[in-house]
């Protein structure tokens, strides 16, 4: 039971971004960190998996079924993408947008279960006090928390998080990633997160995938991937990695001497 990406080919206009990209299966209950330099295609890969972009060749299979064959609505029920830019300008209350994510634009009245589930999610992310506020009035970090509660309330099979903690403070980053990890294990979902803070990522992710030059340049445990000759080279920096007492890795980067 897993997500498989094989032979993926994609590009914008004439420039090719991915040329037959392969990755070994992503298992349920496992959290994977997607890393790589800017513009390498992390967001595009997420959008391909979520079906917002169509690949020119290759397949993305969930539990053996090609996701391209699913109707939009069904795909959206099993795969959820939290996009990078979470700013919303709509005059909608926080509770309303989370409920909308929960109900997935079904018409009719919201059931008591739906409402209870949204309440529970707002409590979990500690934003219950914001529930009547308009999303457009919130700070960047608060909007990101709202977006996360939209993601979690949908209860997807595959959760794609594109820089989910970029606007969050230190405590919130830890809280959110702890919660995502817990949900990933408990509900047996495939979680895939693009993260730029490599030290933080190494504490939570079971697996690292490094994208570089249109391919998966490295794939494995944090120790395998976070090495100077692998990740350091892809980013063009000198990387120093130490195991720390918290069970993660401390990653230090220096500009390499030209």
């Amino acid at each position, binding site marked *: 039971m897993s997500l498989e990406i094989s032979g993926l080919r994609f590009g914008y206009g004439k420039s090719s971004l991915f040329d037959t990209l392969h990755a070994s299966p992503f298992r349920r209950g496992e959290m994977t960190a997607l890393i790589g330099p800017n513009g390498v295609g992390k967001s595009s890969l997420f959008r391909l998996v*979520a079906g*917002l972009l169509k690949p020119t060749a290759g397949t993305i299979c969930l539990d053996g079924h090609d996701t391209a064959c699913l109707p*939009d*609505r*069904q*795909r*959206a*029920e099993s795969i*959820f*993408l*939290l*996009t990078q*830019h979470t700013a*919303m*300008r*709509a*005059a*909608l*209350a926080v*509770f*309303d*947008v989370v*409920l*909308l*994510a929960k*109900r*997935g*634009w*079904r*018409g009719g009245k919201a059931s008591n279960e739906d*409402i*209870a589930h*949204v*309440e529970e999610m*707002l409590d979990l992310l500690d934003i*219950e006090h914001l*529930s*009547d506020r*308009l*999303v457009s009035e919130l700070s960047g970090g608060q909007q990101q928390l709202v977006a996360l509660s*939209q993601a979690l309330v949908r209860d997807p099979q595959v959760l794609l998080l594109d820089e989910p903690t970029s606007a969050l403070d230190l405590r919130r980053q830890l809280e959110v990633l702890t919660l995502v990890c817990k949900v990933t294990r408990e509900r047996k979902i495939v979680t895939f997160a693009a993260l730029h803070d490599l030290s933080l990522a190494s504490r939570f992710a079971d697996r690292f995938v490094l994208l570089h030059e249109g391919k998966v340049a490295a794939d494995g445990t944090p120790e395998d991937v976070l090495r100077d000759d692998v990740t350091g080279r892809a980013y063009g920096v000198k990387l120093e990695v130490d195991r720390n007492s918290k069970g993660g890795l401390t990653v230090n980067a220096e500009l390499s001497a030209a």
Partner: protein
Amino acid sequence: MAEVAMMRAGERYRQRMMRKTMFVGGALVFLALAICVDVGVGPAWYSPVEVMTALLSPDSVDARLAIIIWDVRLPVAVMAVLIGAMLGIAGAQMQTILHNPLADPFTLGISSAASFGAALAIAVGVGLWPSGGTFFIALNAFVFALGTSLVLFAFTRMRGVTVETFVLVGIALFFTFNAMLGFIQYQSSEAQLQQIIFWMMGSLGRASWTKIAICAGLLALVVPLAWARNSMMTALAMGDDRAASLGVPVTRLRLEMLACISLLAATATAFVGTIGFIGLVGPHIARMFVGEDQRYFIPVSAMAGAVILSAASTLSKAITPGVIYPIGIITALVGVPFFLSLVLSIRRETWR
């Protein structure tokens, strides 16, 4: 406030929805009052009792009064409400699909196309449906307005259905039709020029029960279509990517809504000329009171548009006794102070 803070988020959500539903009810009553006032005001003075009697049982009053009420005033009053509602709905949908609160039904060149169509009919006598009779000018305006939407559709086929494509092509169409309209105006005689300008000012004087039936029929067609896409449109208000993540077919939805908007705006313009302001401000008023949840946003936009046009219709008869000013001139005059007073008086936190 203490008990509000104690209440669970879900309970507060239910209360909010209840308040919005009550607001819709209140707005309906307000609209009914606006219609009654509109029917009551006119060059010939009748007491409210006489007017109400004529409305409720036309046979019991004298024939003159019954004719004035039923054949002169009521069509104008009903037309004002229908056109206001059509423009309010079209504006709300346009603002949602373009993610831009400054958009209105005419943003994409529909009104200039309609004006050009009307001018062509008036000045050159060229009609696309020569046997149109009383609907000659209206039909021409309608065909041209709808034609611009088809051009827009064709462009989106080539360049993709993005907000940028819509707006750029819309602006191009707007200037093209304005230039061609200027060309016709320059060539036409004084009498024709006067007719063109009067047409463009917009007038409810062209109201009739046939036109009312057409407008009502169109609303009966478009409103259920839009209603079925309520939650998709609310999702779209969060942004294209957010909506797509929820499985909303963004491209198809945008084109479907554009078709609705085109029909509404083209019909409204063809029948009463270009009436600006309502399609822009109606949705803003709705956004202030009920937010962008489409279940409330669309009905309240419609009612706000209807109330403004109804009030404008009343005022157009009341300013100078015996003179009925073109509604297009009055709309902004009555709408702007009303709108500004709302903006100033409503506290920020109640904007939902």
